[in-house]
């Protein structure tokens, strides 16, 4: 069902050509706040790429600039130097082919669940009837059927964040940017949301850049884990996660999973980074 709802292949004729290319290419990206001697370097010469359909997690201690990186990719913040491109075109401001999921659900309390999911479609003036059908399918995909006409305050934190996720999918973006979307949830809800996100990703085949400070979450979800080091934010090691999909929660108890987590933790600790700063 998910393919019918979310698939891009059918409406993107050039997809076979793009498939092998990098969906996101980040080149020598730097960001400095302020000027002169007081300038703070938040990001220093960031460079990596993400393949189409790939799930990449970015982990790092607070202050490593990972949220800043996401803001740049979302077009909310111009970089000081360097560039980032999506499907071959530079990101020079907000784009309609990107969906963003924030740390909090960021729902509008005066809109129903369905109304919130349809917000991007309303902003971008997409066909109302078609979008409504699609929104109902998405609501169904995350198990919120029956809550379409509820208001956000009537939902639990986990349910609200599910609305936040499918809202980012409604306009069928090529790229999904997620900024610690489950950080505010309790451990149990967080785990089930991880499983759910994996399922949504497997069905939608979106390119995902997922920012987190939880190593286990990063390994569980990602094809590749990018470690960022703080002050200034740089790219450290990159780990390929070779675990079969779909991954059940039990995978977290396996030795292989443990080894990944340990290696990433070691890479994180080597950067010596804990503590506040830019994030």
């Amino acid at each position, binding site marked *: 069902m998910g393919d019918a709802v979310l698939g891009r292949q059918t409406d993107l004729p050039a997809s076979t050509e793009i498939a092998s290319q990098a969906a996101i290419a980040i080149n020598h990206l730097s960001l400095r706040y302020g000027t002169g001697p007081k300038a703070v370097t938040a990001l220093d010469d960031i460079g990596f790429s993400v393949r189409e359909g790939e799930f990449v997690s970015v982990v790092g201690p607070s202050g490593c600039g990972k949220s800043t990186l996401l*803001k740049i990719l*979302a*077009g*909310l913040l111009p970089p000081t130097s360097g560039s980032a491109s999506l499907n071959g075109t530079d990101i020079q*401001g*907000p*784009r*309609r082919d*990107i969906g*963003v999921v*924030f*740390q*909090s659900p*960021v729902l*509008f*309390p*005066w809109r129903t669940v369905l109304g919130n999911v349809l*917000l*991007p479609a*309303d*902003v*971008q003036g997409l066909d109302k009837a078609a979008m409504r059908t699609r929104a109902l399918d998405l609501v169904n995909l995350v198990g919120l059927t029956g809550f379409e006409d509820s*208001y956000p*305050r009537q939902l639990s934190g986990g349910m609200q964040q599910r609305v936040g996720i499918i809202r980012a999918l409604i*306009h069928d973006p090529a790229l999904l940017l997620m900024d610690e979307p489950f950080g505010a949830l309790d451990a149990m809800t967080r785990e089930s949301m991880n499983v759910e996100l994996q399922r949504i990703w497997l069905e939608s085949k979106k390119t995902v850049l997922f920012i987190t400070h939880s190593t286990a979450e990063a390994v569980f979800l990602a094809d590749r884990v990018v470690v960022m080091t703080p002050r200034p934010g740089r790219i450290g090691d990159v780990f390929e996660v070779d675990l079969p999909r779909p991954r059940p929660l039990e995978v977290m108890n396996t030795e292989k999973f443990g080894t990944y987590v340990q290696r990433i933790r070691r890479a994180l600790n080597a950067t010596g980074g804990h503590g506040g700063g830019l994030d």
Partner: protein
Amino acid sequence: MINFVLRLGLIGAVLGVWEWLVAFMQVPTYILPPPTSIFRGLVNGFSSNLYPEHIMVTLSETLLGFVFGTVLAFFLGTIVALSKRVEYFLYPFIVMFQAMPKVALAPLIVVWFGLGLTSKVINAALVAFFPLMVNTIVGLKSADEDRINLMRSLAASKWQIFWMLRLPNALPFIFAGLEIAMIFALIGAIVAEFVGAEKGLGMLIQSMNINMDVAGQFSILLILSMLGLLLNGTVTFIRRRVLFWDPATQADGKLNSDKGGV
């Protein structure tokens, strides 16, 4: 239910003690009339068709002043909230006028605009203007940073951010401002009538004062508080309909705790 009966009982007891004390201590009617003569004044005023006429005058002054004042306040507040430039240049005026007790302008307004309806409407509008303008500015500026970022990330235009986010987000503030403005408009109209008017409840109070008709004044005060309740209740009713999604509205109005008193 029991509480409701107790409440009525208390009101009855207060009126009873009042009636008895006035008689017992032989307080003259022109100082403090007993509730029964206030009631008689009320009945007389209505049966002689004196009160309805003046109520209509004060009510229309209040409503017209409310509409003009709040519409203007909403537009000016919106412009100030959306444009840093306009805010910069208007700020000194706003601060100065806000600190001034607007009712003190009433004598001037009456001199400028005469004893008729116009001066009352202008005074009511002036008094109603500020609470709504301030609340509109605060409300429109209070949109959450994350929500603005969400709208921006969707490539929303400034207008879309205004209509879809800033305005609905400001509505709880705007309604709190409207509730205050409603009561303020009534105060503004009454004060202007005190200064000089041919009709209206404020004018009636003053002429009764000169004639030492204290019972009559009390009956007008009763009408005025009923009028205030009715006007405020109307705005609250609309607010509940519009802001059903607002938790503060559900819990009922901490927002309007600063109304009353000028």
